[in-house]
């Protein structure tokens, strides 16, 4: 079995400070760490490897310092690590990020299962996992809360649908995004840290992804442009709605219309 886990380095802490003028997250002076949800995805992969055999590959897109999270993944049981790092990849929105990761995954040895965190704690979009799956034309499930078993050609999981739990059998290869319910991640091992100190991290730039459409990378491949970035206003008027997904959807639509947002 070949498990691939997509991971991201994010700023430490629960409150990300925002530079409203430049429209970016303030990353200077803030220590970085592995995105919390990715730790659950990685744990799921390592636990499956321990149970069923195979290898775990982690892949991350980011600047060279993002190697730190790949090193960390090695201390958590990952076998191989790839960093996608190139100026051409910079400024990517979720679509360009999904595209770049998908193109890299295509170039790995055949993959049986791709695992992602359900979202990152800096961007919070939850779009990259499903985005990769769509680009690779793979079946996928988001918000996985439990992995029941990995059978010959499929995996059985529970996913959180918001108003209920759905149990799915999904054909391999497929992609899952993991919630915090899925497991209890192990702690990084110093023994593994010592053993993997000199272990290679493969760095791929845009040339390594030759054959991919460079126009889909980075800023040029990002239809989403950040116009303004600001912390969500606090203490504003709020309404609490309860009801079925359909009712809430309708109310949401009506409200947006009423506010002339659509």
């Amino acid at each position, binding site marked *: 079995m070949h498990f691939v886990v997509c991971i991201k380095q994010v700023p430490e802490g629960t409150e990300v400070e925002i530079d409203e003028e430049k429209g970016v997250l303030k990353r200077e002076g803030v*220590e970085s760490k592995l995105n919390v949800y990715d730790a659950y995805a990685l744990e799921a992969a390592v636990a499956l490897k321990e149970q069923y055999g195979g290898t775990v590959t982690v892949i991350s897109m980011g600047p060279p310092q993002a190697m730190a999270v790949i090193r960390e993944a090695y201390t958590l049981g990952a076998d191989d690590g790839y960093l996608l790092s190139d100026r051409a990849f910079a400024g990517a929105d979720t679509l360009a990020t999904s595209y770049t990761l998908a193109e890299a995954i295509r170039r790995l040895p055949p993959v049986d299962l791709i695992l992602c965190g359900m979202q990152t704690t800096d961007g919070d979009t939850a779009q990259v996992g499903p985005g990769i799956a769509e680009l690779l034309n793979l079946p996928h499930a988001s918000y996985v809360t439990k992995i029941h078993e990995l059978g010959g050609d499929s995996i059985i999981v529970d996913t959180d649908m918001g108003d209920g739990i759905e149990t799915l059998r999904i054909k391999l290869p497929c992609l899952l995004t993991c919630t915090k319910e899925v497991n*209890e991640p*192990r*702690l990084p*091992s*110093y023994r593994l*840290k*010592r053993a993997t100190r000199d272990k290679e991290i493969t760095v791929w730039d845009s040339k390594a992804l030759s054959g991919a459409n460079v126009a889909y990378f980075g800023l040029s491949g990002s239809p989403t442009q950040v116009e303004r970035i600001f912390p969500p206003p606090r203490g504003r008027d709020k309404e609490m709605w309860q009801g079925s997904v359909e009712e809430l959807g309708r109310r949401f639509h009506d409200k947006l219309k009423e506010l002339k947002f659509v």
Partner: protein
Amino acid sequence: MHYSKLVDTDIAYLEGIVGSEHIYVGDAILEDYAHDELGEARAFPEVVVEPDSAEAISAIMRYAFERNIPVTVRGSGTGLCGGCVPIHGGILLSTARLNRILEIDTDNLMATVEPGVILLDFQETVEKMGFLYAPDPGEKSATIGGNVATNAGGMRAVKYGVTRDHVTGLEVVLPNGDIVELGGKVAKNSSGYSLLHLMVGSEGTLGIITKIIVKLLPLPRKVLTLLVPFPSLEQAIETVPKIIRSRVIPQAVEFMERDVILSAEKYLGKTFPHKTAPAYLLLRFDGSSLSELEEIYELVGDICLESGAEDVLIADTPERQDGLWDARGAFLEALKAESEMDEVDVVVPRDKIAVFIRYTKELEKEYGVRIRSFGHAGDGNMHVYILRDEMDREVWKAKMEEIMDRLYDKGSELGGQVSGEHGIGIAKRPYLIRELGDTLIALQRQIKEVFDPKHILNPGKVI
């Protein structure tokens, strides 16, 4: 000692001091006031008062002194040795309303608090301002006053010392009602006998603390925890002196065994990140950056692996650390939820812990009673719990008495002391008296006599 029983005029007088809202008599006295968290001692006071100033306490003491009424002070009642139990009845003086943080002096790096301030509230308040109040007793709902009265220790004692090391001044009401100030907002003090330090740890037998000045430290920027699984408890504990010898100073070094971890998991309903090893060390380091801490933990990690540790697990983020310390913090409650028990809180030289723990294992086998230990491997202070489980109560008590005698003898033989941090109260009084011997106990009793000639403050405790 003969004491006066309280009569209606006494109650009326006390009510005049504290107000009718803050005095409880008879059935209005909650059962909680008759005991502490663990000690067997159980006794109701005749009246509970909640004064809110040193002046009110002074007035109460002047009256009690004149009338010969015993007075027992109580904070949160989280003690483990019966120290706050009013075994001679009389007045129970609660510090619940003396709960103000009076000043956080950032120029002198000191804070002034009233005794009823809850430890957790105080720690959180100063941490938000970038300071550390270093004493870190496990029971966070205890009051600072109670911590001072018992000279409470805690996990961070390895690096920062105990409560006594952080108190620079006290305001105290003496048994005759006089209000005195001991020490002050000074970093040094060589001015005569240190009554300040005599008062710290005196468990409410010499005076009533009404104001406390403590030191603050800059809050360390980074904290990192290592969880180290070992194939045996002995190997775990024998590694501690090697770590100390390597000249790094951990904030905390705790040891624990698997079945206590499993108890805590069950009690908290949370999963511990590793539990296949028989024993663990839990180490915490603080510093100014992760890279500084990395250097330290690699050194310690190598020592642990060379000493037979299965691995060294690195908890480097708050999420990874919280689960570990939450479990550690729940050990006492988790064991209490399983069985009736009593404890020994001895402290021995750090390099003797392994010998002591081995001895508890021998006694466990010999007596067929479950004995569980955990505690501060870094400072030699262990908490040893003797559990009743399904055993007949009388049989258990008889066995426990013998076990305790032998444990205290062993502690003494190894150069230890009766209590590391919980204090003496009533539960450990016989062992302290035995340990101190005639000369020292006579000296201590003379000191008591000087402060409290009528023996009205927390009578029957400590000595």
